[in-house]
């Protein structure tokens, strides 16, 4: 009687020593190909489009009118001002209206020429935003002892109500 023997399986091994190298190669590829670009920018809400615009009278001391002409010169309420100075002169005006009701808060109106450079406009807008952010930070520091970013969402909402950012973008004037 023949003895049935089990075949001995030769040990089959995949060499794994180079696995790390391969993985590193893949890793490098993804490291190089990754673009972690964060979208940063200045947020704004446009008004709804309406055919015939109603004009509402707004009292002079609620308004801060920023005018930028085609040469990049800036007027703040009729006075020539350098762009880096905008936030400084807006801050006290925002601060003075913190305790006022919502319909008395400051409105910043930005108006440009059609030929105004976009970069100048962004610089001015940046200054206005900066003024608001600094006021918010200072107010939350005195009230909660923390900066605005470190507040919880409820407190943030409260602060947003106290210091709302109202920026009105006027349509550029047509060149005659």
């Amino acid at each position: 009687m023949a003895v049935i023997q089990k075949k001995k399986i030769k040990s089959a091994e995949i060499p794994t020593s180079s696995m790390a190298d391969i993985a590193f190669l893949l890793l490098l590829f993804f490291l190089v190909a990754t673009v972690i670009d964060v979208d940063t920018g200045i947020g704004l809400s446009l008004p709804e489009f309406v055919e015939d615009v109603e004009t509402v009278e707004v009292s002079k001391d609620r308004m801060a009118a920023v005018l930028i002409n085609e040469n990049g010169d800036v007027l703040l309420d009729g006075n020539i001002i350098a762009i880096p100075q905008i936030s400084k002169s807006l801050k006290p005006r925002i601060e003075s209206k913190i305790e006022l009701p919502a319909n008395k808060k400051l409105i910043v109106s930005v108006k440009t020429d059609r030929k105004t450079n976009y970069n100048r406009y962004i610089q001015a807008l940046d200054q206005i935003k900066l003024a608001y952010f600094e006021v918010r930070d200072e107010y939350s520091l005195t009230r909660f002892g923390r900066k605005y970013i470190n507040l919880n969402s409820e407190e943030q909402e409260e602060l947003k109500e106290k210091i709302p950012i109202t920026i009105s973008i006027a349509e550029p004037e047509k060149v005659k």
Partner: protein
Amino acid sequence: MKFEKKRAATKQEIPTASMPDIVFMLLLFFMVTTTLREVDVLVSFKLPEAKAVEKIENKRLISYLWVGRDQRIQINDNLVSLEEVQNIMYTKRQALPNVIVSLRIDMGTDMGFVSDIQQELRKAYCLRINYSTMVKS
């Protein structure tokens, strides 16, 4: 006198068997976080810089609109004319009601052109916009 090098009796090897696992873990992390560029930007532009910037938290809501140095507009993968902006953005808004339009506009553009685009966006009811800027350090 004979000098002999002192050798520690213990093995001096770092176990490398788990190295692939560690590397694969890193690899997986990068694979998951990577967003490969979906669109080719056809226009050349240089973003302005600003200090008071915010991050857009919800990337899913963003829809991009590029304006190049030569005043060409790009939405998605193709260049479009100013008149087409309204229609395209309106369909986008219908698909995604609270879309944020990220405007990547070259810093040398005239404001007239920018506001023309804004008018089109207003007509398309895309009211949340974001002027994309670099962060000034």
